[in-house]
């Protein structure tokens, strides 16, 4: 199919500032993996040109964490008791807020349509977009989690476990979110609807994540909930891009 050859060149090359990879890709038809890799690079590059957007979910996360000491009590013993819940609720809300950026700009300027028409596997491209989104929001949020935990009186020994749990859990959150964001693409006032669609599906992550965090705070082995979080992540990696690409196609119709 000739459309595939030409589209592969125009796809990310339009934005990837003159790196060698897009030029090579335009010479031969890019494989699905190559196209996905280029889409991921493009999203990361674009995001670094709008740094303010990257900082907002992080600020929101810190803000939500700050609300709890103010609303409950400044006593660290009390805060330590609710810390797992606070961390995961803040994580869930912040990742929800970040979802707004996942497809919005690309839907606006027609990039998503180009992706859909490119002849490349839209599933892989959606996977790449979600992976980029996770790298840009999920990982920074996960890195914030130990800091927030410290401020809630969590012992330092628990921090590596918490970091691991949040990193694994945020993979699933990003992927579930990509389905919700794709379904509500282009709708007016989609914010409340997006949370109504995404939060119920994210509950298992919240449950296992908070459990892993609790065990880490207690100094107990946390392998069991971590394995369950990892299982959820594997399931989401396998299935969510399929649903997201189907949803994007429907939204573009």
């Amino acid at each position, binding site marked *: 199919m000739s459309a595939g050859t030409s589209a592969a060149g125009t796809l990310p090359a339009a934005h990837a500032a003159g790196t060698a990879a897009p030029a090579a890709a335009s010479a031969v038809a890019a494989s699905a993996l190559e196209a996905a890799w280029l889409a991921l690079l493009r999203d990361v590059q674009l995001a670094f040109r709008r740094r303010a957007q990257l900082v907002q979910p992080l600020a929101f996360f810190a803000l939500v964490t700050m609300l709890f000491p103010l609303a409950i009590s400044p006593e660290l013993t009390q805060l330590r008791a609710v810390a797992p819940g606070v961390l995961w609720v803040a994580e869930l809300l912040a990742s929800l807020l970040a979802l707004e950026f996942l497809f919005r700009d690309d839907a606006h300027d027609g990039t998503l349509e180009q992706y859909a028409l490119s002849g490349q596997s839209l599933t892989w491209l959606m996977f790449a977009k979600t992976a980029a989104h996770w790298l840009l929001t999920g990982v920074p949020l996960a890195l914030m989690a130990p800091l927030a935990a410290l401020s809630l009186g969590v012992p330092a020994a628990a921090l590596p476990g918490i970091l691991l749990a949040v990193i694994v859990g945020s993979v699933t959150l990003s992927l579930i979110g990509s389905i919700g964001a794709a379904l509500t693409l282009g709708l007016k006032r989609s914010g409340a609807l997006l949370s109504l669609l995404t939060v119920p599906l994210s509950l298992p992550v919240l449950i296992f994540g908070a459990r892993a965090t609790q065990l880490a705070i207690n100094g107990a082995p946390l392998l069991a909930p971590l394995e369950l979080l990892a299982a959820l992540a594997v*399931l989401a990696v396998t299935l969510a891009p399929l649903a997201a690409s189907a949803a994007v196609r429907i939204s573009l119709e």
Partner: protein
Amino acid sequence: MSWTWFHRLASPPYVYAFAARLTPWFAWPAALCILGGLWGGLVLAPPDYQQGDGFRILYVHAPSAWMSLMVYTTMAIAAAVGLIWRIKVAHAVAASCAPIGASFTFAALVTGALWGEPMWGTYWEWDPRLTSELVLLFLYLGYMGLRAGIEDTQRADRASAVLAVVGVVNVPIIHYSVVWWNSLHQAPSVMRLAKPTMPPSMLVPLLLMLLGFTLYFVAVLLVRLRGEVLGRERTASWIREVVSA
């Protein structure tokens, strides 16, 4: 074997008439089963030795909870059929299922809370069944919200169908993670909604109610489906013939 009877089910005018003919065949047996079940459950069955007469709300609560899951599954299957074979009528079935299922879920929640007051001493207990039922209500609300948020019917059909399929994959995961979560935080509650052994005088009315609720669901679904088809086909010429006839 001829498949024409099956293919005709994809045609809106045929389905409209077919649903009208089928409705009484489900509505009357549903009424009989529910009346019989209520009489058996509220009058004939003996009071429970622990819960007294309070257990009788089971005859509404358990069938509602059962239907809330069954309707969701039906909705997801109809949505998947519509998505895969692009059958408009299947999407209409899925759209008609959602409000019915949400109502059953709501009924299960309310009766569960009313039951909890005499049994647990509180209207709301974070019991795994009640909690998963609450999550299911949110899944229904999300489905209906997405459908209402998209103006174009075809796009609403297909987008909500994807959501229904994603939801049905997640329902067991959510359910078991909620059960797991609950078992960590409290010992299994003394009261089990389904007793391991039930004398026939209590069990038979329950089964009658289950059957009655299922038949009632089909009857209401057929009525809603006709309304849904009318709304979708409002510009088609066969509607004018139906309305003027």
